[in-house]
């Protein structure tokens, strides 16, 4: 094992897959010399050259669309969008094209493309560079949606995503790029659609993903000091969703709080709540299903206001207590 950052884990996954499979290439804005807005692709230009590490014009529709086209005829592009908010500029490609080609064409094509993009807030980047838009992506059948919370998960999941024959949205968490974690030195992959119980507990389940995993673990730690034993389930991918692990956890703890950074209203927490309500776990619940997400407000620039919009460790602790 070695300790690396989340950004390095993503870099390693891309490099390993590019060495393994020469149909893999990487394109996006300022990913070559500049190494991307968050320095994720450091060293890749030197390793693979301009033919495989391609700076694009500032034309999201063109290069995301080109990624889909290249994937349709046998390449495996990794496309980076500098901020996930810019997916709105190429929404047609992500919604009407990539996820639907295979189905519409009677299963005769596949679109093995990964779109990597930094998502979420906490960096003071304000309303147009801080959003968590995963719920709307999860809404489109044909698209897979992955959000890793640790270096280990980021590497293993990205390698699987690159090998997947479907378009995969890989939403990285900006504030996690510099966080460190242990990663095996030998090759490994993590299947999509398998949740990870990051902390096992008995009194309440927190179902979460992304940046909120660490916060939930901190909340669990604090609650433990008060004798409350919380289980933290990191779903890791929204699509496919590991229904089974969620339901098992809720059956065990009989209490559930769903936490995500995205706006609570219309967020993916609603789907998770629905899955629980529709399942046998519902009969085991000792309290209503509770959700905690961001306030219905564009992300403000001021750091204190920004903090007030998002879930915090304190808010998670309070929510769990109010459930028990």
């Amino acid at each position: 094992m070695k300790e690396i950052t989340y950004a390095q884990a993503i870099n390693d996954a891309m490099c390993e897959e590019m060495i393994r499979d020469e149909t893999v290439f990487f394109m996006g804005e300022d990913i070559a010399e500049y190494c991307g807005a968050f320095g994720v692709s450091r060293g890749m230009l030197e390793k693979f050259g301009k033919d495989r590490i391609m700076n694009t014009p500032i034309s999201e529709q063109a290069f995301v669309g080109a990624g889909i086209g290249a994937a349709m005829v046998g390449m495996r592009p990794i496309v980076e969008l500098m901020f996930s908010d810019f997916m709105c500029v190429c929404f047609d490609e992500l919604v009407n094209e990539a996820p639907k080609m295979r189905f519409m064409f009677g299963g005769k094509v596949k679109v093995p493309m990964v779109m990597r993009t930094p998502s979420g807030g906490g960096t003071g980047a304000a309303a147009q560079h801080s959003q968590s838009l995963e719920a709307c992506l999860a809404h489109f059948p044909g698209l897979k949606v992955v959000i890793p919370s640790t270096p280990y998960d980021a590497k293993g999941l990205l390698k699987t995503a690159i090998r997947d024959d479907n378009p995969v949205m890989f939403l990285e968490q900006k504030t996690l790029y510099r966080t460190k974690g242990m990663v095996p030195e030998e090759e490994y992959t993590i299947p999509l659609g398998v949740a990870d119980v990051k902390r096992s507990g008995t009194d309440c389940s927190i179902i979460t993903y992304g940046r909120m995993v660490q916060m939930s673990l901190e909340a669990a730690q604090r609650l433990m000091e008060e004798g409350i034993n919380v289980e933290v389930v990191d779903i890791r991918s929204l699509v496919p969703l590991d229904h089974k692990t969620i339901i098992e956890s809720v059956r065990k703890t009989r209490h559930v709080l769903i936490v995500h950074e995205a706006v609570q209203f219309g967020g993916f927490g609603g789907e998770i709540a629905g899955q629980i309500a529709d399942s046998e776990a519902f009969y085991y619940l000792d309290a209503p299903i509770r959700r905690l997400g961001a306030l219905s407000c564009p992300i403000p620039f001021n750091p204190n206001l920004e903090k007030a919009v998002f879930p915090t460790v304190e808010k998670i602790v309070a929510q769990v207590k109010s459930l028990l």
Partner: protein
Amino acid sequence: MIMWQMWIDMHLARYFEERVQWLFSKGLVHGTTHLGIGEEATAAGTIAAMKSQDYVFGTHRGHSQAIAKGIDVKYMMAEILARETGVCKGKGGSMHIADPDIHYFGADGVLGASAVMCVGTALATRKRKEEDRISVVFFGDGTSNEGATWEAMNLAAVWELPVLFVCVNNTYGMSTPIQDVMKDTDIAKRAYPFGMPAKTVDGNNVLEIYHASVEARKYVASGKGPMLLVENTYRISGHSKSDGNLYRTKEEIESWKEKCPIKAFRMYLIENELFTEEELDKAAKAAADEIEQAEEFAKASPEPSFDDLMNDVYA
């Protein structure tokens, strides 16, 4: 008067940004900020030729544009420091500086979006039969590759709307040199397919920009349709706080410092005996003082209150 104004605006912009850079390095500015040190002539020269009723859309690198349009630097500095007194109440920050009260529709974080909205303000102007009011949009060379920019040009052209497209060509989109992302780097040619006139000027020569902008405004306001101005300049400062300048050489940056638009303008004003050294220095000093006061004002201002958080989500 115009020259005096441009001299002051360029200094306010330079000092403002140098101060923001310093505050940033001290960890006093949250988030990120895009500085346009070296590009001050483009905003000062263009907007000096506009009228106060004109609508202006700036770029993410828009501090100098806001200043030339007449923003109060106090409130802009307070915004950068995320204060309640900020021009956007501390909710927007550097990337979203705007002041609709002075018809400045601001910086936008999503490239290309300003151009299409600018077509809309021009459309409204025409629908209301307002005369002598044009809409101006600034955008970068990199943004000229964005689909929205092309669509905006086409729509403005085919509807013959009073839009002035101003491309601030600093030869890089972030780290990417224009020759890597454009087959032909003569951006003025991009007006051709839309049947719209274009002119290219030295973006470090504020007078040349001003005169070209006066002509451009005359054309656009006459109802003949949009026009494109390309202003060739250079960004001395890094793209943003995360820029390690790995894509360009020190020599290149130094050579452009020599071509500083403020230095060049000073030389012109002195050589032509329009102002004395003393007068110019005094004005520059006054601009520096104004920025210092703006910083004091910002620092003395309170943080926004939590009670204000949910205000302005809906009208």
